């Protein structure tokens, strides 16, 4: 579904963030990218939707080469995506309802009644049913993120990219977001790519987990194998989050 072919990304400062990275995200899976800060997780995500372009290599979305797409072709490819930004990126002058309704109003011919039904449904899913009239500045960081998630899924896209979906959220809400991501994937067949530091989430919902380090993909494994990984970077990550046993996550997988 999404394919990285020998992607290298060097920024203007000369920093090589991705170094000959190749991997493929399968249709319908929940693919989680983990790794220390600055190893190119969010950069990878931004390549998938062409907010960044590779210095060399190609990024494919299905049969479309997104890294070379321009104009209308890029618009068409992007319309297949939903994207949850790390900062939520809600428009500050619109209330939550209008923010979530925005892609439907701008890009579909739905009636206002149909839009209201979809927006209310999306807000209920993320636990913000009563917050439609709130302005983003009146919400906590976690609530803003959930509103951003509602906006990302309201159009029911084929692929949703989540940049740190549970950072800044309390454990109960984090779990709710995990369930929502898993539910969207299983019920609607949405392909999900999640960038996170939260291994509890990653182990709970992922089909596969990719470990990034030093601009390289160090491993791509299912959670059951990742938890037993012998990679020093993966072990350090697991142990830093007090994850030493495998049973708990298998039992808790939504």
């Amino acid at each position, binding site marked *: 579904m999404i394919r990285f072919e020998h992607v290298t990304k060097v920024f*203007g400062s000369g920093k090589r963030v991705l170094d000959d990275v190749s991997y493929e995200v399968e249709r319908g899976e929940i693919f989680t990218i983990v790794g220390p800060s600055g190893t190119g997780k969010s950069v990878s995500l931004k390549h998938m939707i062409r*907010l960044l372009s590779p210095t060399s290599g190609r990024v494919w979305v299905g049969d479309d080469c997104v890294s070379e797409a321009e104009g209308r072709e890029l618009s068409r490819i*992007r319309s297949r995506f939903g994207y949850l*930004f790390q*900062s939520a990126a*809600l428009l500050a002058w619109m209330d939550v309802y209008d923010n979530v309704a*925005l*892609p439907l109003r*701008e890009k579909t011919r739905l009636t206002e009644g149909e839009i209201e039904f979809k927006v209310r449904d999306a807000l209920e899913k993320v636990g913000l049913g009563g917050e439609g009239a709130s302005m983003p500045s009146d919400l906590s960081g976690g609530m803003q993120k959930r509103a951003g998630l509602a906006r990302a899924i309201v159009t029911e896209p084929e692929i949703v990219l989540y940049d740190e979906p549970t950072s800044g959220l309390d454990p109960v809400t984090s779990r709710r977001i995990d369930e929502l991501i898993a539910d969207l994937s299983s019920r609607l067949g949405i392909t999900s790519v999640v960038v996170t530091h939260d291994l509890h989430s990653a182990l709970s919902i992922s089909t596969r987990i990719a470990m990034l380090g030093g601009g390289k993909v160090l491993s791509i494994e299912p959670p059951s194998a990742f938890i037993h990984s012998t990679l020093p970077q993966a072990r350090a990550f697991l142990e830093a989050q007090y994850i030493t046993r495998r049973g708990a996550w298998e039992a808790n997988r939504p």
Partner: protein
Amino acid sequence: MIVREPPVREPARSAVQRLGRRVFDILAEVGRAAMICVGAVAAMRFAFTKRARKDIVAQMHFCAVRSLPVVSVVAFFIGMILALQIGIELRVYNQEALTGSAVMASMLREMGPFMSGLVLAASVGAAMAAQVGTMMVNEEIAALEIMDIDPLRFLVMPRMAAMAVTVPMMSFYTCALGVLGGAVVSHTQLAVPWATYFQNAMDFASTKALWVGLFKAFLFGFIIVTVSCYEGFRTEHGAVGVGRATRQSVVTNFLLILIVGYFVTRLFY
């Protein structure tokens, strides 16, 4: 695409190469600003959709109604200053009764569009650059592009449509208030009768001066929105970047208003 990456380049090998790159960079940035203007004008065909109409009215309210107090004070005092300065000189030749004509001609040809343009560039333009810059820093512009919502249509076009209408209106208002301010000074300081002042002013109120002034103001509206949004769109590095964009938009707007104002005057007179 509004969201863009800075280009990766090898270090320049000579001063000539550095200079060449600088020239090309400046030309590229001018081209980018022009594309923002052209893109927003092309998006005017969407100006009559329900949402766009609502946005345009909101922007007109922001540009005109909320700028009215400062524009009023500036216009009134500009008229008063003009009348005082010109009147004192004319009194030497016992011709202070002509003050109205001089104030009217100055306001219509230059001071009306010029002062309204400068005031709106400093208030509305700065606010525009700060808002767009903050949106850029907060990834709101990137979010729009990912949702396939064109920022030029969504953000720039309503502002441009609003300013294209409101700057000429504000210019006309500035002229009227300036002439009134001149009348107050003429009557109280120079003992020119009200009727004489206004009769004299109306005798010199040429249709050409009015239309040229309004045309200038119309151009200033485009300049303010293009420059402010361009500076906003190139914002990076957080709050510092927003401050830089705001300052740069005001400086560039002032310069362009002066330069374009001169050439339009030169074109018609």
